[in-house]
């Protein structure tokens, strides 16, 4: 291999080894497992090819013997997509203005504000989720201010996820927004454009790159979330993340868990492709 200008090529081998062995191989194994048969008593897998796992994910025979679509699983998948979508939209609606606001401050203020936005990201997600367990509890702050008890409802899961992912949305958009050419904005205002026009016709298109990155960075992990639905949502409405965890844990059905993981992977791939193509368009 041609050495790079910074140093010899061979120093990258450990990275490639870990990449292939510990990133590529696990994905391959998961895909393979999704086509294998469930082990005896549910443990592990038997190396026999079958489509049973996928059949279980999409179709079911209920107790009475009626065949139908597997509404339980399909509802879970649909609910996860809907939740991830809503969280992403709200994060966009709050994150875009915040990023723009920070980017339009003077440099030193920008650094402080960005540091402030980043700090919650460094706090362990469990501690941040626990904070909402306190706030939304029966007798907690929100309850005392007159709201019904939100803990253990889907609202709590939604709030917890939005809270966790807001910095993820702000940072890439800010990265785009800080490069905003202010003279264009000034020109627009000089020409008499209203604030809304400047915002929608000029600013947002200019930070498209960051917005797409933000969408990918929020939507994908939100799809696979596990901690928030489990602690805040009352463990009642399963999402894909909790379902996969369940199949690999308590329910001990690895092929079905793998099939669900493959499904999640596919959805992730679609999102990545959708947001990547836009970036390429912009680059050219």
């Amino acid at each position, binding site marked *: 291999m041609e050495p790079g200008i910074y140093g010899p090529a061979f120093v990258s081998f450990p990275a490639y080894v*870990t990449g292939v062995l510990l990133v590529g191989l696990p994905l391959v194994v998961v895909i393979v497992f999704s086509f294998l048969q469930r082990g005896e008593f549910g443990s592990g897998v038997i190396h026999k090819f079958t489509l049973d796992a996928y059949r279980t994910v999409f179709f079911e025979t209920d107790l009475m013997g009626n065949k139908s679509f597997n509404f339980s699983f399909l509802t879970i998948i649909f609910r996860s997509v809907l939740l991830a979508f809503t969280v992403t939209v709200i994060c966009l609606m709050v994150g875009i203005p915040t990023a723009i606001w920070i980017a339009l401050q003077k440099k030193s203020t920008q650094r402080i504000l960005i540091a402030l936005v980043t700090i919650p990201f460094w706090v362990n997600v469990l*501690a941040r989720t626990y904070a909402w367990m306190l706030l939304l509890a029966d007798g907690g702050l929100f309850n005392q201010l007159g709201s019904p008890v939100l803990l253990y409802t889907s609202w709590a899961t939604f709030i917890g996820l939005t809270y966790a992912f807001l910095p993820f949305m702000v940072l890439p958009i800010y990265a785009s927004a800080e490069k905003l050419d202010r003279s264009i904005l000034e020109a627009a205002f000089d020409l008499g454009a209203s604030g809304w026009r400047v915002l929608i016709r000029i600013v947002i298109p200019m930070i498209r790159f960051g917005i797409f990155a933000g969408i990918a960075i929020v939507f994908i992990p939100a799809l696979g979330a596990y901690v928030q639905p489990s602690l805040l949502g009352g463990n009642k409405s399963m999402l894909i993340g909790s379902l996969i965890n369940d199949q690999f844990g308590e329910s001990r059905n690895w092929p079905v868990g793998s099939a669900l993981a493959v499904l999640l992977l596919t959805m992730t791939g679609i999102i990545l492709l959708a947001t990547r193509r836009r970036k390429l368009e912009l680059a050219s």
Partner: protein
Amino acid sequence: MKQKNWNVSHLPLIKPIGIASLIFLYLPLFTVLMFSFNKSEDATTWGGFSTRWYATILDNTDLIRSAKVSLSIAIPCAIIAALIATGLAIGTGKATGKVQNVLRALVNAPLVLPEIVTSVGTLALFSFVGVPLRYSSLLFAHVVMCVPFAFLPIRSRLRDFDENIFEAARDLGASSVRVMTKITVPLLVPALLSSGLLSFIISMDDFLTSLFVSGPETTTLPIYIFGLLKLGASPEVNVIAALLLIIPTLGLLVGITWTATRRRSNEARNK
């Protein structure tokens, strides 16, 4: 109408939403901080100020052991991940061959894939190959997860490099190893530190992967805390959550002021 002096308030809603989002981000953190000083035994209702629960933390041997386990994974992980990521950055340089792109995408995959997928994948791989779940397996899993994060500061630092230096060195006949040891690595040192720090934090905070890949002797701090959280709110958890807040924040503030003073002294020196 001419608006000579426009400012951000002219863009509708930007300022209020910006401020509101900062409040939204910090309200929960202040709540946890405040409630860790709650005198009452009922964790969710305020009963006066007290530091009594902080004293009980030191008695909690399970908490301390899990913190030690987490540290024993995070520190080696930070070093190894930073080294591997640096190797990747140096070794591939600006190459854009198909093989390199695929491999780079693989290495970066943990950053974009949902963690539930990578963690069950790692578990499935270990099970398939017959690797038991112990310290080394968990360390490997963490390193793989941290490398893409470790790569970020290094890549951005490389972008700032003046390529002429490297080309000059090659023209002068330096071998690639010499270029690496004499020029690249010394220039990368600050990025290496960020890299290590980033990996350290990612590893300390990790929950999902550790949950799947942990074994008898590898109960990490987040796993222990999750078990406590399932038992519901309690004064002890309030304190633990507050500490999880205070320690990284202090560390970050120290880091930020340190980089700011370095920058200022550099700028002063360069005047």
